[in-house]
């Protein structure tokens, strides 16, 4: 193999062991304390599981959900139903079916069933909710939370209504809560580092770019939503088995705000952040609550009662964190990614990969005949006709230049070809199959890669991750995705920079990384929208060399939108000129360059003067 990887074993171990150690320390402190301290610590650990559940969805998708506590409610009630002693069940929940009342399960099976049903509920609820836009999800999930509350509060015969349930067996100990919390950390990290987890993180970094490499945004969000539902359900079930009482408000607004504060203060992007956020906020909260009820410091200074102090304190902590550390206490990093841990030798940054091995090409099965063909594409925006019946054919292995004045419709045509924009009329076919109206995700899987006028990097993902996630969008294994990334990065001369976050790279490298990302899907056709914009002259020359290699090595067809004729002319065998939504000329570069109509509308007479001189 290439020796390329996302992280060193030591870094992975640190990321896993540090949160586990924090949980173990918290549990040890609690287990040896007074019964009331034991209760407090158990509650903290149950909350921690819910916060990690939140992290799985919010941290990886970058979309806030205010509905996850609804799944904790579901988990809690299910666990309570399954364990409530029969006498109490008859009194409190007369409407509950007999098979549930008679189940009399132990703690573990009840928690597992609660987790499973919460997860299923999350999938069912997520199916419509995840279809709503990034901005609508916080609202729609919040609406779900309110629905859950009202169902539980008003279904008196089954849930005990707003007065709730009591006498649920208290079986959760500090130890069992700690074990579950540890399992939650492992599960959350395993998901985050899985191909699916990376695909979701890519949608967080840039939704449009993620779709262009074949990632189904809704599908990935739904997976995390379901997993988050499982974890929240476990947290809820454990909590009810600790307190022994449950009412509809247990996991409602208050708990939603508290757990969200924990996640945000700790840093939503990392499991480490969720862990330290949950523990730190809970500790501060307990201290403030002590003061709230009147307490004495060191036995000397006594403080009177201060109701509301805990809530005010939490608010101030949230505000201060948002101002001073927008990415939370963890900075959004996992423990293994912390610089000071790396400096202490307890973790290690990924090594700069040395050399890449060549990967067998086209392991993804795609028909090797035909072309990308657009016929009679027309499109209008609010009455403004942008494309007026454009035809275009791109053969595998050829480079076709697409030039024309600004506003001619070049980018719109690429958007139509790649599925980002549906045409009003006309058809797009790929290797003989009509693909008009297919989604960008679908087309990317069919072998259509593209870049954008802006580089659209995945800022927080490293170069390797950014490119490998392209291959992961095709559903190949992680191992192979990394090998593909190493190969592509090597060809584009990006290996040195590949372990840095993409957002930290200079603009020229970000653009090349965008091309590398599109190549990682092993496209049959590659659409490049102004790849040289913003590149300096040395970088432009490098780009021409790279694109030549891509043509010969990958054998894909390249459609090149570019204003710099020094790039278009040497690369392209044919050039198509668009003006005002119509093709005005197709031909060899030299012919097109000399065409009076092209000079008039696009190149300008000073270009000719430059050529003559």
């Amino acid at each position, binding site marked *: 193999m290439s020796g390329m990887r996302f992280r060193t074993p030591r870094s992975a171990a640190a990321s896993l062991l540090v949160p586990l150690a924090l949980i173990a320390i918290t549990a040890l402190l609690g287990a040896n304390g007074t019964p009331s301290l034991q209760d407090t610590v158990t509650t903290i650990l149950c909350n921690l599981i819910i916060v990690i559940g939140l992290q799985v969805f919010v941290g990886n998708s970058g979309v806030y959900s205010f509905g996850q506590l609804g799944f904790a409610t579901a988990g809690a009630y299910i666990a309570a139903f399954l364990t409530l002693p029969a006498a109490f069940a008859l009194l409190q929940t007369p409407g509950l079916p007999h098979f549930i009342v008679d189940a009399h399960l132990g703690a573990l099976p009840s928690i597992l069933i609660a987790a499973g049903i919460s997860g299923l509920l999350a999938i069912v609820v997520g199916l419509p909710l995840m279809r709503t836009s990034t901005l609508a999800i916080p609202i729609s999930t919040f609406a779900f939370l309110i629905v859950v509350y009202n169902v539980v509060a008003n279904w008196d015969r089954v849930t005990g209504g707003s007065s709730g349930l009591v006498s649920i067996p208290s079986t959760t100990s500090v130890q069992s809560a700690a074990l579950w919390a540890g399992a939650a950390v492992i599960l959350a990290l395993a998901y985050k580092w899985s191909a699916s987890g990376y695909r979701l993180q890519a949608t967080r970094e840039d939704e449009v770019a993620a779709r262009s490499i074949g990632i189904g945004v809704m599908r990935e969000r739904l997976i995390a939503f379901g997993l988050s539902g499982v974890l929240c359900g476990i947290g809820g079930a454990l909590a009810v088995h600790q307190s022994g009482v449950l009412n509809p408000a247990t996991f409602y607004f208050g708990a939603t705000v508290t757990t969200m504060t924990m996640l945000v203060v700790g840093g939503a992007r990392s499991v480490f952040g969720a862990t330290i956020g949950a523990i730190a906020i809970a500790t501060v909260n307990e201290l403030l609550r002590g003061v709230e009820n009147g307490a004495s410091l060191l036995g000397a200074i006594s403080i009177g009662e201060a109701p509301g102090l805990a809530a005010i304190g939490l608010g101030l902590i949230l505000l201060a964190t948002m101002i001073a550390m927008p990415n939370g206490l963890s900075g959004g990093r996992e423990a293994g990614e912390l610089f000071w841990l790396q400096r202490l030798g307890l973790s290690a940054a990924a090594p700069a990969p040395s050399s890449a091995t060549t990967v067998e090409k086209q392991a993804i099965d795609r028909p090797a005949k035909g072309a990308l063909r657009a016929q009679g594409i027309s499109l209008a925006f609010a009455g403004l006709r942008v494309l007026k019946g454009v035809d275009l054919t791109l053969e595998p292995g050829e480079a076709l230049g697409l030039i024309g004045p600004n*506003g001619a419709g070049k980018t719109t045509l690429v958007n139509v070809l790649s599925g980002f924009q549906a045409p009003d009329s006309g058809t797009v076919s790929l290797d003989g199959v009509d693909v008009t109206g297919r989604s960008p995700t679908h087309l990317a899987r069919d072998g259509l890669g593209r870049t954008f006028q802006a580089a659209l990097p995945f800022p927080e993902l490293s170069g390797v991750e950014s490119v490998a996630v392209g291959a992961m969008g095709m559903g190949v294994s992680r191992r192979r995705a990394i090998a593909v990334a190493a190969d592509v990065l090597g060809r584009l001369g990006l290996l040195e920079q590949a372990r840095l976050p993409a957002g930290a790279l200079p603009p020229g490298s970000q653009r090349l990384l965008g091309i590398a990302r599109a190549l990682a899907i092993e496209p049959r056709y590659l659409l490049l929208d102004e790849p040289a914009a913003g590149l300096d*002259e040395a970088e432009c020359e490098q780009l021409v060399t790279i694109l030549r290699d891509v043509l010969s090595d990958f054998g894909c067809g390249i459609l090149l939108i570019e204003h710099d004729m020094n790039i278009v002319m040497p690369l392209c065998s044919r050039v198509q000129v668009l003006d005002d939504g119509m093709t005005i000329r197709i031909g060899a570069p030299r012919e097109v360059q000399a065409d009076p109509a092209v000079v008039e509308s696009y*190149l300008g007479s000073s*270009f000719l003067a430059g050529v003559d001189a």
Partner: protein
Amino acid sequence: MLELHDVRVGYGRIEVVHGVDLSVDRGEVIGMIGPNGAGKSSILRSICGLVRPSSGKVTFEGRVLTGMAPEQIANLGLALVPEGRHIFKTLTVAENLRLGARDEAKVGELMEQTLARFPILRERAAQRADRLSGGEQQQLAIARALLGRPKLLILDEPSLGLAPKMIDIIYGLLGELREEGVTMLLVEQNAARTIDFCDRCLVLSTGKVRAQGSREELQRNPDVLRAYLGRQP
């Protein structure tokens, strides 16, 4: 008018501008050229208050700009036409222009002057700004900056992403402004065009000024240009 003295700019632990001096006098047109990563944009950002220099001083008409907020600096009469244009996409062309004006009393007069200079914008005044083509958006960005009657116009890669003919049109407009005595500071990738257009150019590379002078002076030492700019001019 604008003076930079030993300005250093860093992001985190990495310093990208290592002590740059620069002065722009009233009516001058100054260009900055150099490869990506040379620090051109960082210098512009430090002038406009978008990043605070780690050391050194920026003054404008004798006032120290270092530490001022971007909007305070803009109100002193420095207008930045940012790379990538940053127009207000969902507002109309006319609304975009209106927002550029700072002298409320003379808005009507200034709008008229500006629209006379940019006929395409008059034609499209009622359209949403994101419906304009790239070249028209660039004109809008420049026009919006001019409505504030800036003393100094700062342009970051005005030709980025534009068709060759549109670049000619933009530079035609900038040429008119130069004739009227508008002071300009210009960053561009295309070295030859910038050297031709500006009174004086600074050649930057890896955070330092490597050469500067008028077109004639720069053309006298082609080795320097080749070393820092590659094939041109």
